[in-house]
């Protein structure tokens, strides 16, 4: 009887030892597998930080301390904009577009979380020569109703003037010729031409544009998040190739295709890149 009990205990011990060993081995196997992936990854992550600058320094909002190329004293209250179709170009011409259809990001100076975009995609490792994106949302995707929730919903561009969404709302004030602090809504989006009676001449005009950032090389390393910065330099909206005079264009330009065109041309070099 005692012999049997002894045997039974010994078997129990053996049994539990085997179970423990099996568990340990499976855990080791799983962890090793993960480690192998981490040690030899083919992809990494990308974090894009959005910055707002004026004249080479971080923007100070709501303070009338800036002078644009036209000599207008101005302040910026807030800015909201979309970028979309972000494309990463590799040496040799291969390119990767982030997230296809839902490739857009909303940036709002009043929502700090929007200033950091942790890109969902796994990005192939390697050296990238440059980065480009669409300012606003390209016309094939810029469709009314695309955003059902706020804050993106607040960017709606009325259907009667083209629909979809604002590319950007840049709100501020300038000291006009009468020294009045006048408000401006530098709002960019789909443009319109009008006939002599004020009726819209179709089709609407896609004023969104592609931005290719110069000197925007970076490296994606395996299993690592790479940080890059995209900076909007406010003064450049008013600077080149066209000098944009707020006294001339006035406070609202959503229905002024002339102003939209000038702004779009200036927008090509509004952004800069840093690591």
């Amino acid at each position, binding site marked *: 009887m005692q012999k049997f009990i002894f045997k039974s205990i010994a078997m129990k011990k053996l049994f539990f030892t085997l179970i423990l060993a099996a568990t340990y081995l499976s855990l080791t196997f799983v962890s090793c597998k993960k480690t192998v992936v981490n040690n030899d990854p083919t992809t990494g992550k990308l974090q894009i930080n959005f910055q707002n600058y004026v004249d080479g320094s971080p923007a100070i909002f709501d303070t009338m301390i800036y002078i644009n190329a036209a000599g207008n004293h101005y302040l910026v*209250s807030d800015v909201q904009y979309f970028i979309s179709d972000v494309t990463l170009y590799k040496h040799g011409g291969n390119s990767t577009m982030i997230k296809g259809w839902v490739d857009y990001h909303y940036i709002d100076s009043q929502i700090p979380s929007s200033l950091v975009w942790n890109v969902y995609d796994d990005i192939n490792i390697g050296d990238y020569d440059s980065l480009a994106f669409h300012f606003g949302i390209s016309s094939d995707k810029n469709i009314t109703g695309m955003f059902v*929730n*706020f804050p993106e919903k607040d960017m709606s561009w009325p259907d009667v003037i083209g629909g979809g969404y604002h590319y950007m709302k840049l709100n501020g004030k300038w000291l006009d010729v009468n020294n009045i602090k006048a*408000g401006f*809504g530098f709002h960019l989006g789909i443009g319109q031409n009008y006939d002599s009676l004020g009726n819209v001449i179709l089709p609407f005009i896609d004023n969104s544009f592609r931005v290719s950032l110069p000197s925007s090389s970076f490296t994606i390393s395996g299993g690592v998040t790479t940080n890059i910065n995209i900076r909007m330099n406010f003064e450049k909206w008013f600077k080149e190739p066209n000098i944009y005079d707020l006294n001339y264009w006035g*406070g609202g330009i*959503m229905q002024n295709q002339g102003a939209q065109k000038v702004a779009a041309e200036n927008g090509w070099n509004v952004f800069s890149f840093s690591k």
Partner: protein
Amino acid sequence: MKSISHKKVFLLLLIATNIFYSCKKDPPVTTIKAPTPYNFVIPKGFPTNVNIPANNPLTVEGVKLGHYLYYDDRLSGRADEGKGLSCSSCHKQINSFENGTGKGIGVMGIETDNVMLPHINLAWNPGTFAWNGGASSIEEDIYGAITLQSEFASTWEKVVAALSAVPEYPAMFEAAFGTKVISKELIAKAIGQFVRSMVSSDSKLDKVLRGEYNFTNSERNGMVLFTTESGADCFHCHGQPSNPLMTTNLFYNNAKDSSFNGIGDRYSVTGNHNDIGAYKAPTLRNVELTGPYMHDGRFKTLDEVINFYSEGLVYSEYAHPLMHKVRPPYGHGAALNPQQKADLKAFLLCLTDTSYIHNPNYAKIHL
């Protein structure tokens, strides 16, 4: 042998005790039925993100209780003093749950700082209630309203005591929240549930969006004026057909005044210089029913409001940048002609939802 026999006796006693206790009837277990989830339907075109607190989900029983409380003037805790007051005393269904007369007057005869805001589609409010966004939830708003001298001028002790004395309420609280013990928190939660359940989505504009109605020419022209910068430019602050809430729920100094006392405005909440004289852009849903207008009720009619935005804007350095039509000497508003004003008004009237003001689910009810 003797010891074995003791063991046996002990074992027998143990078994007997076991049998005795197992045969004893279990005490009755009180089971409280869990409240039934409320089916909150999001209308077509409305945002899918709703602001329903995780700690106060809508339930059928909670909404029903809140409905009764909303209309119960014992909510002041002072009905026995002849000073009964309920939410519905100032938030009348016929006026889209606004009072339709201007500032509210509390049980002490003291006026509220500002006019009422309507209770409508508040499930979509992002957490900035009242004209200055000073309350982060409906519940928080209710906490304050009970003790404010210009509103209920009461104490929560009195309110809880008054409602606890109503025979039907303990069972209703139990059905909604699992306890018969009435508290300040549960009163606020129940009313919060009812108010969040109040949805308006059947105006002419909604019908247009659903393809059930076509605007008249005047209404369509009004919509164009509403949604264009060269027109009346209302949409930047009040939304547009693609935002059927008809508000951004944001705060703007809309150029009503040249000087400000800082009382009750957004600045009083944020301390941000740019919020001086700024108030919430209220929803324009049922705007026809919610006059007088502006935070202080200075305009009695929609015509006065339209005239103000057409030629009455007042310059100050605090006016929001979007109010760029005020730029003396060039302009003091949208400069609409009489036909445009009529068209704009015709569109605003398309935001009236009569089914909301007659919806029996929100109608007067009492115990």
